[in-house]
């Protein structure tokens, strides 16, 4: 196993290999829960917790899981952690549970979690896998918050539910609608591509 510093994980997960903005995984949940920053943080933290736990356990079990049934085994591990997270949120943060609704259980089929299990945790040690899960999760959260920031600030003129532009702000209704989610995500992905290609071009 290659030895990697913690900066490698930060750079890989949050920037150069961001699961949403670069790998384009898990777009369903990004589109759906980016209506407000509160939702984005709630979803981001839930997914991060699931990613860390599932990566850790899958990495520990990687020598015992037979090659042929590995995907099924990963899904069972992931859905176990998702259920635990779902029950915790239901018990302690009922408001978040209500606004995220079905998207918490749908973390099971979020491509990011399965992709990290297959691409990283099944080949690396437990500590590296947990770190990978943490920073991939943070990268996901950052992308989710970027989209949610634009949608909440301009769509309804507030941040974390607190009004920013005052009562008179009419709000851009379209940004809070499904169409706005697609257009906003498209712009964010395009902006990231534009700036990264520029930086590479300068070198």
């Amino acid at each position, binding site marked *: 196993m290659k030895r990697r510093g913690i900066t490698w994980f930060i750079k890989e997960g949050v920037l150069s290999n961001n699961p949403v903005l670069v790998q384009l995984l*898990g777009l*369903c949940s990004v589109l*759906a829960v980016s209506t407000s920053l509160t939702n984005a943080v709630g979803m981001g933290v839930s997914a991060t917790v699931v990613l860390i736990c599932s990566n850790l356990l899958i990495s520990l079990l990687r020598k015992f899981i037979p090659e042929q049934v590995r*995907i099924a085994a990963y899904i069972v591990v992931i859905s176990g952690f998702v*259920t635990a997270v779902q029950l915790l949120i239901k018990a302690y943060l009922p408001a978040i549970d209500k606004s995220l609704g079905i998207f918490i*259980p749908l973390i099971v*089929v979020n491509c990011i979690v399965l992709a990290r299990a297959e691409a990283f945790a099944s080949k690396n040690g437990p500590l590296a896998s947990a770190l990978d899960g943490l920073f991939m999760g943070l990268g996901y959260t950052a992308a989710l918050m970027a989209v949610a920031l634009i949608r909440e600030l301009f769509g309804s003129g507030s941040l974390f539910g607190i009004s920013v532009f005052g009562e008179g702000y009419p709000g851009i209704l379209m940004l809070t609608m499904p169409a706005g989610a697609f*257009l906003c*995500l498209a712009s964010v992905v395009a902006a990231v591509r534009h700036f990264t290609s520029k930086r590479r071009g300068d070198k």
Partner: protein
Amino acid sequence: MTVAELLLMCFSAILAENFIFVKFMGVCPFLGVSGRIDTALSMGAAVTFVMTVASAASWAVYSFVLVPYGLEYLETIAFIIIIASLVQLIEMFMKKAFPPLYKALGIYLPLITTNCAVLGVALLNVQNGYNLIESVMYGFFAALGFTFALFVFAGVRQRLDLATPPKAFEGVPLSLVAAGLIAMAFTGFQGISLGGSGFFPFTLS
């Protein structure tokens, strides 16, 4: 639920509550395979089949196994296992019984396990308290809506290949913009929805 309500539910599952453009479920395969009309239709057919059968199977397991033993909290795990094994079974069955169909759908079948629309439909059926017939109808028509979206988008995408967008928008961002424009058209159907059943903070009725 009366027959009229059932029909309205089926109709809104295709248009007003379209899985891709309104509920955002199954966007990954949508962006992945909708490049050509024929592959989009094959994928749609496979998803429709799995979603209909999965609705019935998950309803049966939920009401005959999970509820009697008070295990409702295990629904996510139970449903994903049902879906994964169902997809595996269908794959094996089709390989033996209908080789040409298997060849046509083959590569799309394993992908369906991780399509969030399938798990989503199973969870929504439980959440909305649908009975067997309602679950199966909802699964089938939501899948038709998914297929419809794939089909419409594949047509748009074939045109997009000829477009020359700014470099940063090439590929997926451009597809997302096109999807956004189609989603805008789909909001027009909101007025005929049952109302209050979506999870968006607005009603246009």
